[in-house]
């Protein structure tokens, strides 16, 4: 278990969500930000900038903390199946780990708490099946 780096990284995520909400009044739910960034509306503008910031952060990590971005041995079929389910499910469910799990719970939104418990439970089930029954690498 990585106690200090987990708490420090979590605090940075919370600070990011706080800056966006305190100054711009917007919620840092990544699935909503990404899908909204692909629309043609005035609200797409800030979302594109946020996504650009995320990717820029990935580039910074690539050089400053390369161990954070390993090459995962995920098969392409596994990546495609997972991506389709994550994209569809996040939109149907109105949020993902960030929107429900961090921002919604911090607002004490009961639906977000229920959603978070739900996706954690099905996530644990899926990981059990994929890694133990199907033998995919963890």
């Amino acid at each position, binding site marked *: 278990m990585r106690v200090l780096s*987990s708490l420090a990284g*979590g605090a940075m995520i*919370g600070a990011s969500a706080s800056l966006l909400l305190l100054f711009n009044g917007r919620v840092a739910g990544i699935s909503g930000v990404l899908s909204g960034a692909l629309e043609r509306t005035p609200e797409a503008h800030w979302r594109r900038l946020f996504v650009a910031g995320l990717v820029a952060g990935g580039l910074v990590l690539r050089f400053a903390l390369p161990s954070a971005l390993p090459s995962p041995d995920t098969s392409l079929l596994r990546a495609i199946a997972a991506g*389709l389910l*994550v994209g569809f499910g996040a*939109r149907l469910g109105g949020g993902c780990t960030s929107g429900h799990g961090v921002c919604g719970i911090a607002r004490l939104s009961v639906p977000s708490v229920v959603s978070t418990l739900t996706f954690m439970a099905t996530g644990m089930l899926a990981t059990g099946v994929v890694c133990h029954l199907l033998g995919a690498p963890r």
Partner: protein
Amino acid sequence: MTARDVVAAGSGLLFALGLGVAGMTNPHNVLGFLDVGGAWDPSLALVMGGAIAVHFWIARRAARGARPLLASQNALPENPVISARRLAGAAIFGVGWGVAGFCPGPALVSAASLALPPLVFVAAMIAGMRVHRRYFDDPGCSPDRLSEPSPAP
């Protein structure tokens, strides 16, 4: 670039660095948290706990209706009811998350590594979002309709 643009891009950057420091851009660590039947690694709970603790005060401030500093109003999701549709969405999302250990934020950040799995995951994720938008769109879930001020009665 307005001040709001700087906040939007800067918070995206900080979010990505936080994910990296927390180890959440490594799907191995995420699967370690979800694999309760194997060698369980509870670190992800500390990441979420740390993020919620830091965000709590600002989030409550906004939920109580305080105005943001650079915008006329907050665009918070109206407190949605717990519907079967939303629960189904959360359940489907969780399955996808548990299959590969990627959720939207870490996947976008990892895509900057240009490794094939996160790039393919992001493309499939966008395709899944488009399928939802085309066939299952629900005004209650649309991020843009959430951002519009409610029309006067």
